[in-house]
C-alpha cells in the first residue's frame, strides 16, 4: 500500500553499500559498528517507539546475544554458525521470561523493573568473572570470527556483513509494521484501553513485541561479537540500556529509519566530542535534556511531522 517506505529503505541500504567505496577505511570501521548498533536501536525502537513500552534495561538483551555467542564459541567450541543459532535461541527464551515477568507492571514500574533485571544481569556477568572475563571481557578466537568462509578480521567482510544484517532487520521490520500485528502495536501505544475494546489482546501483543525486540537486540549483540571479536561486561551496563533510548529519541521513535539516523548522529557526536574532552557524556546528557524538552519526536519524527507524513 505504502511503498514509499520500502523504496526509501532499500535506497538507504543501496547508498550504504556505495558509501563503503567513497569514504576512508577509518570511517568504514565506524560505519560497520554503527550498523550493528543500529540493529540494537531498531530492536529497542520496536518496543519503545512502536509499542510505547519504555524499557531501561535493553542492555540485557544485547548482552544475552553477546555472551550467548561468545561463551558458546569460546567455552564449548561451537562453530560460528552454531553459536549464532544458540545466541538467537537463548535470546528468544530470555525475552520470553522477561516478558512474562515485566508485563505484570506498567509505566514507571515497568521502567524500573527492566532497569533492575538488567542490573542483575550485569552483576551475574561479574559474579562469573572466571568465565566471562568480567569488566575486561574476552577476545574471540579465529574460528569464532569466520562464517561461511568469510573472515571478519578483513574490513570489507566486516562492513558488508554488518550491512547485510542491518538490511535484513530493516526490511523485515518494514514489512512487519504494516501487518495487522504491527499496526496493533501502534494502536496499543496510542490508546491501550481503546485497542482492548476493539478486541485486541493487549497482553499477547506486548508479549510478542518484547520477544521480537529482545531477539533483534540479541542478534545485534551476537553479531557484534562475531564481527568485532569481543565480548565484555561494559555492554551489559546501565549505560548500554540508556544509549539505544538516546539513539531512538534522537532519530525519531516509531519510525523505521529513525534508529539509524539517531545512531549515526550520536556516534559521530561522541566521536568528535571525545576528541576534545574525556567528559563526552556531558554532551550526551545535554542532548537528551534538549531533545525531551524541544524535539520529543526526534529528527525523523520532525521530518515526518513537517513534510513526510507517509514516513513509517
Amino acid at each position: 500500500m505504502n511503498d514509499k517506505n520500502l523504496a526509501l529503505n532499500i535506497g538507504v541500504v543501496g547508498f550504504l553499500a556505495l558509501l563503503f567505496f567513497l569514504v576512508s577505511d577509518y570511517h568504514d570501521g565506524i560505519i560497520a559498528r554503527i550498523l550493528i548498533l543500529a540493529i540494537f536501536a531498531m530492536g529497542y525502537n520496536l518496543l519503545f517507539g512502536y509499542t510505547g513500552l519504555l524499557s531501561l534495561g535493553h542492555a540485557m538483551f544485547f548482552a544475552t546475544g553477546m555472551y550467548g555467542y561468545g561463551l558458546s564459541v569460546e567455552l564449548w567450541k561451537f562453530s560460528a554458525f552454531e553459536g549464532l543459532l544458540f545466541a538467537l535461541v537463548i535470546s528468544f527464551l530470555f525475552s520470553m521470561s522477561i516478558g512474562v515477568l515485566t508485563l505484570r507492571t506498567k509505566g514507571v514500574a515497568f521502567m524500573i523493573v527492566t532497569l533492575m533485571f538488567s542490573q542483575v544481569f550485569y552483576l551475574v556477568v561479574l559474579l562469573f568473572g572466571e568465565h566471562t572475563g568480567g569488566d575486561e571481557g574476552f577476545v574471540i578466537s579465529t574460528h569464532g570470527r569466520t562464517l561461511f568462509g568469510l573472515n571478519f578480521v578483513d574490513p570489507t567482510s566486516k562492513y558488508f556483513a554488518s550491512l547485510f544484517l542491518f538490511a535484513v532487520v530493516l526490511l523485515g521490520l518494514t514489512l512487519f509494521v504494516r501487518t495487522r500485528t504491527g499496526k496493533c502495536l501502534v494502536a496499543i501505544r496510542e490508546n491501550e484501553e481503546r485497542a482492548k475494546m476493539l478486541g485486541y489482546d493487549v497482553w499477547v501483543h506486548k508479549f510478542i513485541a518484547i520477544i521480537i525486540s529482545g531477539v533483534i537486540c540479541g542478534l545485534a549483540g551476537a553479531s557484534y561479537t562475531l564481527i568485532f571479536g569481543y565480548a565484555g561486561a561494559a555492554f551489559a551496563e546501565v549505560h548500554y540500556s540508556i544509549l539505544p533510548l538516546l539513539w531512538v529519541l534522537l532519530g525519531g521513535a516509531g519510525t523505521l529509519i529513525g534508529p539509524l539516523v539517531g545512531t549515526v548522529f550520536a556516534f559521530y557526536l561522541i566521536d568528535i566530542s571525545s576528541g576534545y574532552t574525556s567528559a563526552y557524556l556531558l554532551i550526551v546528557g545535554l542532548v537528551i535534556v534538549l531533545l525531551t524538552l524541544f524535539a520529543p519526536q526526534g529528527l525523523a519524527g520532525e521530518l515526518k511531522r513537517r513534510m513526510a507524513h507517509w514516513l513509517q
Partner: protein
Amino acid sequence: MAPISHLSTKGLSKNFGGIQAIRNVDFDISKGQIRALIGPNGAGKSTFVGMISGRIPPTTGEIYFADQNITSLPAHKRICLGIAYTFQITSVFSKLTVHENVALAVRRNRQLKPNDVLEQVSSILDKVGLLDRANSEVRELSYGHQRLLEIAMGLGQEPSLFILDEPTQGLAESEVLEFITILKSMAGLTTILLIEHNMDVVMATAEFITVMNFGEILAEGTPDQIRLNEEVQLAYLGKT
C-alpha cells in the same frame, strides 16, 4: 414465537468502595432489538454497560451473551464474540488518521485483504459522512466529528451487539438525524443497546426502553408505556 434472548444479566451488582452503583440487575434483550437505556445522570448506566463489555469487573452476578456465560471473559474476548462498545468519553487514536482508526476496528475480527479493508473503511466513512476527512489526523477533527468516528469504529467491527454510550452528545442536529438513519438501517440485523439522553432519538429508534435509577431498573416497556409511566415521569422525564 418467543424472542431469542441475545444478552441477559442475572443479579448483576457493582460496588465502588461504599457506593452501590448497580444493584442486583436482571436484564434481558432479544436478538435484533433496538433497546434504549435511559435514566438520570449517575443512575449507573455507564457502569452497567461497562460490565457487559468487560471494562469493569462486576462485584456479583452473571452475564450471558448468545447462550454463553461471559462473566469471566476478558474484554477483548467478548469483543471478538461480537460485542462492540463506543465510549461515553470519546476514546479514539488521536494521533492516527481517521482511516487508520476505522481500519483498526475493521481488521480485528476478519482476515481481510488490504484492499478489502480499504473498501470497507471507505464505505463506513461514507456512511457517517467522514469520507473527506479520511486522511486527517483525528486530533484535528471537531468534537462532533470525533463522536461520529467513534460510531464508525463500532460499525467497522460489524458487531452482533452494539452498545452505544450517549453517542449523540455533542452532535449537530443534522448529524443526529444522520445517526438515526444509520441506526434504523441496522434494525433487525444488529442488537442495539443505546444509552441516550436525547428523547427524540430514543422515541425515533427504540423498540423497547429500560429506565434505570439509583442502580436499579425502575421500569421497562414500549416507548408508549414508558411515556405514560408516572414513576418514570417523576424520576426522569419530569425534570426535562
